[in-house]
């Protein structure tokens, strides 16, 4: 199982991605794709970019979650803890508030600026200490501050329409995304993923605690920079593209960990593949579900994640009791 996990996940992801192109309010049989059917436009312009976005956002969030859990040595850590996702959301909400969201790229740029500001603030707070406690507390403070500012912006929204638009956006969705969104998100995600892949050995060393990791040649402040920038790029780009989609970073590393050697580096790639798989499936499901207006995938993930988290806590409690 341990050796076959990655090929299995890859095969499942490939299959799910292809099937997700078929699924939706309009079902399109695979034969129609080849036969010059006019519904091909639905596939090429709507479902293909949406599917690719689900792959990179889900994969990125899974990877970022696995890296965060490894770095904080805590199975309950989540990229949302970090403040970057709240910062990106604030940036996007401000763009909508000032009516800039209709212009292409502006919403993405504002979300990325918000993520960048949160990253810079966190780096300044954590400083050169490389201390994990300061890092965690800094993330929590930034997260709640950005959350408060977002609430303030919502309460000051000029029209109920703007309020609705902001709230709707915050829920996270992949509806009506275009190739532009893919082109903005993909390079940033790829860069973040490369940076996080570079932390694998250091995260493994941290298994033995900070002192042992340093004695194994890990530079804690360098590692902290890598984690801040890597997770920041991924989470920032994913919020810019799809709004806030929670729980993937928390759930997926848990699901795959028992099938790996359990050291942080062996959880990274399976988490990325598992995250992509989960979001592709969830997004296809909300698209195909017979609801009047499409269920936001961010809400669907939270509906799935809440009970999962509860079950996790119950199991932990039983283990401790």
């Amino acid at each position: 199982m341990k050796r076959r996990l990655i090929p299995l996940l890859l095969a499942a992801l490939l299959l799910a991605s292809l099937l997700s192109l078929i699924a939706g309010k309009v079902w399109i049989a695979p034969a129609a794709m080849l036969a010059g059917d006019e519904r091909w436009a639905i596939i090429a312009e709507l479902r293909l970019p949406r599917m690719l976005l689900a792959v990179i956002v889900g994969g990125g969030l899974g990877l970022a979650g696995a890296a965060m859990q490894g770095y904080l040595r805590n199975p309950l850590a989540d990229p949302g803890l970090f403040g970057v996702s709240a910062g990106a959301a604030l940036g996007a909400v401000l763009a909508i508030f000032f009516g800039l969201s209709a212009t292409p790229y502006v919403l993405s740029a504002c979300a990325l600026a918000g993520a960048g500001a949160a990253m810079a603030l966190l780096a300044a707070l954590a400083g050169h200490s490389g201390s994990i406690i300061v890092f965690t507390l800094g993330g929590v403070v930034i997260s709640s501050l950005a959350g408060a500012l977002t609430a303030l912006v919502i309460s000051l929204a000029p029209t109920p329409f703007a309020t609705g638009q902001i709230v709707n956006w915050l829920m996270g969705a992949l509806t009506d995304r275009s190739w532009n969104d893919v082109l903005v998100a993909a390079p940033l995600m790829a860069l973040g993923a490369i940076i996080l892949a570079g932390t694998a050995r250091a995260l493994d060393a941290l298994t033995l605690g900070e002192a042992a990791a340093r004695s194994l040649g890990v530079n804690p402040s360098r590692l902290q920079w890598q984690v801040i920038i890597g997770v920041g790029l991924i989470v920032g780009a994913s919020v810019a593209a799809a709004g806030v989609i929670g729980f993937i970073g928390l759930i997926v590393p848990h699901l795959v960990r028992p099938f790996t050697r359990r050291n942080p580096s062996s959880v990274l790639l399976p988490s990325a593949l598992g995250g992509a798989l989960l979001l592709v499936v969830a997004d296809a499901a909300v698209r195909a579900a017979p609801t009047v207006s499409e269920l936001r995938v961010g809400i669907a993930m939270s509906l799935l994640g809440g009970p999962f988290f509860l079950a996790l806590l119950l199991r932990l409690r039983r283990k401790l009791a």
Partner: protein
Amino acid sequence: MLAARDLVLKLGGAPALAGVSAAIAPGQITAIIGPNGAGKSSLLACLAGLQRVAAGQVTLDDAPVLKLDPRQRARRIGFLPQVAEVNWDIDVETLVALGRLPHRSAPAADAAAITAAMAATDCAGLAGRVVSSLSGGERARVLLARVLAGQPDYLLADEPLANLDPGHQLDTIACLRAAADAGTGVAIVLHDLALAAQIADQLVLLHNGQVAANGTAAQVLTGPNVAKVYGIDIQVEHQPDGRLHLMVKGRSQRG
């Protein structure tokens, strides 16, 4: 030679080390002893290159240890922390393999070093077990195997015998002795004076962040030294094999 010269270290404003010099020689076991708070762990962390100092420096073959590339330093100095922390429930072989992280050598070389380290610590039978299923003694052996797998020139261990029963203490001592006989410079922090007298080639006795005495057991573990540093009276017997036999008689009369 791994040498500390005139180290001054302040932790949270309080002086932890106040001008400590000590040397760890290849092929020998050096025991760092002293009462709680004397600065033993601080000295060990400084020797391992994990601690910035206010003054003085640690040199590894005459190169300042803090200026070495961290990975290069990690290949030469192995460090076993006092707290046996393992955060994920990994299997023993994966854990021991962590000792190879600084090397990035060929997989065959890594595998050979890991196998040798596990054999030396009698862990070969534990390879597939997960950490949470190990007893305290097994865990201590596995963590020692992790350091040995890195094949360091200097092995620094902070209280490697704490929480071990006498049998496992002897096993661990035999491991450290074998490493020293193979040329490794071994430095360990110890609390048990009788054990220190038996196993150490060199002793460094710390008191309030300063070196109260150093040298062989016979030079360091004298009645007056021990009375001054620990506030206890001991009886020292010189054995025919040259070893010391130590017995604690009780608290010395103060005043």
